[in-house]
């Protein structure tokens, strides 16, 4: 038998040092763990960690040769498989519908449009490869994709370097379009949602005192909070409490107890659905009866599953609502359902449909297949009548468009109102 006590001194030191190291490391890795997939992608959850791959892949990209061909070939890359497969599939459906509609009206520039789709399996490095293939092998005129900000950020430098216009339908992280002047998006960026919710609560809910509960481990949440507070104060409201948590936390009672003591009219919680569900349940058990509000990170059936009764009546902002009575939306939903087995289009499909149509519209306005002219045409898009609202592209190549506010009722998010920029 070994002597049980012999290595104790060394062991003690290791026993303490290793876990402390682990704590330090887990501080970094924690956020990616719990809510990987689902709503994270749309809201720019996985936006960090784009460092090496994109620049490395983009380093040896040449300017694409002038476009030629009897048809207009557009490239699409997206996660048709993998953990965010529904994102890619919805987006693909939306784009294909936009293209087929254009083709029934003789395409664009007198040519038919064809879409080449490459699956990136939801992986950042494959997104870069997919776009390289689209540009070098398929010689596409322009590129559509991705949903997740991290993957758009991996592919965008390649499009920029090759001089191929790229429109991301739903990457909301501000960094995406900062890559360069060929990169556009058709959704609003993260901070806008904060402004929207502040305006909604001030005007529609007549609230004056707000408390904020932010996920400090998440840029998305911090961005929304910052702009919420800015708009709230600008419009004369008062912020009575600012509390925070980190993604992956389970116990929020201490923060909620403090918030309860400040007696706010509304509580803004721009986090992801798992934590929000938990926060709602714990708030109710502490006797907090105020309404909570959030952003598109709430958009998941898991919110209702975890939050149940506690999340009823809560508001959150989103890109679009299938319940809108806008005739454009009604027509879009009818033809989408006809085309895709009676499925109701989600926000991703709707925004992708708009992205496809804006691309085709820009090619038409450019008048030929000169990529530089197409870029300029996309950049000068003004009040394009999309199903997700009138879309203009601003100086930063971001979409300026309305957001919708939804309210939780039962297991559904019901349309309440539209807030314009």
């Amino acid at each position: 038998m070994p002597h049980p006590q012999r290595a104790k001194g060394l062991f003690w030191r290791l026993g303490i040092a290793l876990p402390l190291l682990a704590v330090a490391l887990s501080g970094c890795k924690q956020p990616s763990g719990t809510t990987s997939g689902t709503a994270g992608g749309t809201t720019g959850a996985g936006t960090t960690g784009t460092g090496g791959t994109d620049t490395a892949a983009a380093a040896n990209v040449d300017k694409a040769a002038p476009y030629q061909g009897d048809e207009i070939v557009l490239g699409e890359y997206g996660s048709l498989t993998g953990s965010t497969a529904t994102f890619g599939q919805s987006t693909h459906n939306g784009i294909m519908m936009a293209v087929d509609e254009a083709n029934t009206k003789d395409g664009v520039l007198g040519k038919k449009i064809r879409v080449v789709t490459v699956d990136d399996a939801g992986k950042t490095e494959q997104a870069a490869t997919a776009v390289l293939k689209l540009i070098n092998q398929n010689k596409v005129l322009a590129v559509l994709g991705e949903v997740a900000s991290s993957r758009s950020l991996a592919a965008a430098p390649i499009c920029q370097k090759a001089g191929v216009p790229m429109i991301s339908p739903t990457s909301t992280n501000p960094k995406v379009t900062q890559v360069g002047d060929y990169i556009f998006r058709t959704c609003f960026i993260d901070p806008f949602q904060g402004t929207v919710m502040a305006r909604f609560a001030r005007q529609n809910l007549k609230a004056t005192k707000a408390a904020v509960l932010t996920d400090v481990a998440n840029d998305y949440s911090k961005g929304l909070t910052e702009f919420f507070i800015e708009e709230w104060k600008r419009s004369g409201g008062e912020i009575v409490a600012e509390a925070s948590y980190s993604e992956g936390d389970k116990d929020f009672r201490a923060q909620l107890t403090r918030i309860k003591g400040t007696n706010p009219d509304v509580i803004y919680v721009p986090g992801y659905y798992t934590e929000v569900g938990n926060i709602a349940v714990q708030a109710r058990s502490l006797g907090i009866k105020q309404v909570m509000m959030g952003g598109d990170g709430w958009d998941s059936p898991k919110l209702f599953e975890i939050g149940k009764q506690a999340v009823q009546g809560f508001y959150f902002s989103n890109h679009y609502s299938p319940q809108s009575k806008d005739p454009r939306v009604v027509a879009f939903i009818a033809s989408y359902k006809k085309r895709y087995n009676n499925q109701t289009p989600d926000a991703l499909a709707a925004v992708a449909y708009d992205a496809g149509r804006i691309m085709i519209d820009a090619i038409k306005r450019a008048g030929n297949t000169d990529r530089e002219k197409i870029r300029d045409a996309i950049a000068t898009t003004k009040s394009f009548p999309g199903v997700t609202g009138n879309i203009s592209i601003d100086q930063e190549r971001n979409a300026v468009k309305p957001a919708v506010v939804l309210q939780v009722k039962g297991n559904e998010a019901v349309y309440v109102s539209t807030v314009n920029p």
Partner: protein
Amino acid sequence: MEILQQIVNGLAQGSIYALIALGYTMVYGVLRLINFAHGDIYMLGAFGGFFAANWLGVTRRINEGGSANLVYTALIFLFSMLACAVAGMLMERLAYRPLRQAPRLTALITAIGISMLLEYGGQAVFTPDPQSFPALIPGTTLIDTPTFTLTLVQVAVVTVALALMLLLQFIVFKTPMGRAMRAVSLDRAAASLMGINTDVVIAFTFALGSALAAAAGILNSVYQPSIDPLMGVMAGLKAFVAAVLGGIGSIPGAVLGGLLLGFAETLVSATQYSQYRDAIAFAVLIGVLLLRPAGLLGRVTAEKV
């Protein structure tokens, strides 16, 4: 009055940490091993409760608006605690016993390996998506004033945790197996020479610790109703800190450490510095260890040469 509410919050959270910390401290007591997979046993306990509630139809009844039945809730606790006790013994038999003669570092690294196996295996089996845990204890409010709310769940968390700790105290100090555990912890070689089957004692220790972790897993999930395969990572780490804080190897120390950590976290979260919660909790640990290297209730043992 707000401080009273925060004390209740801290007490409930601290009791859960204490329950998990007990497993760390007991295994360390008999084996001088930090079982890093212990936090993941806590996760397995939560999922055990989740599946048991599904099979017994409790989840369906609660979702249809009914309330939990005490007998079923007790059954769910028992099932999950038993399942985790078996899992703990299996882990000891398959992963740690073959390494009993190997250097301690080997066992420690194995523990980290098992922990990852459970975390990522859990993601493969249960999916990484969070699941909603049924309200096994009704959400009745016992006291409801504008500044202070006390729910049945909070009372239950603290009561069940306390009862389990008393039960553990009884097992360790009043039963032959408990005496054997203490003997092994004091000197394994000598205990073996006195006719104690140390393998059985060690297996029993793992079973006991894992059962407590399973109970903590269910209590926590009733209190904070979402579970996922990585829920044990942070909880396990915090409980480990609690065990070290109280003096690892000491059972009352684990309880004290758990409660202290729960209070420290709650009090920091209650201020506007909530983003520094973990930093302050760990700073407390470092401070205590500087003053008392063996932890609050730990005994300083002289090195034998």
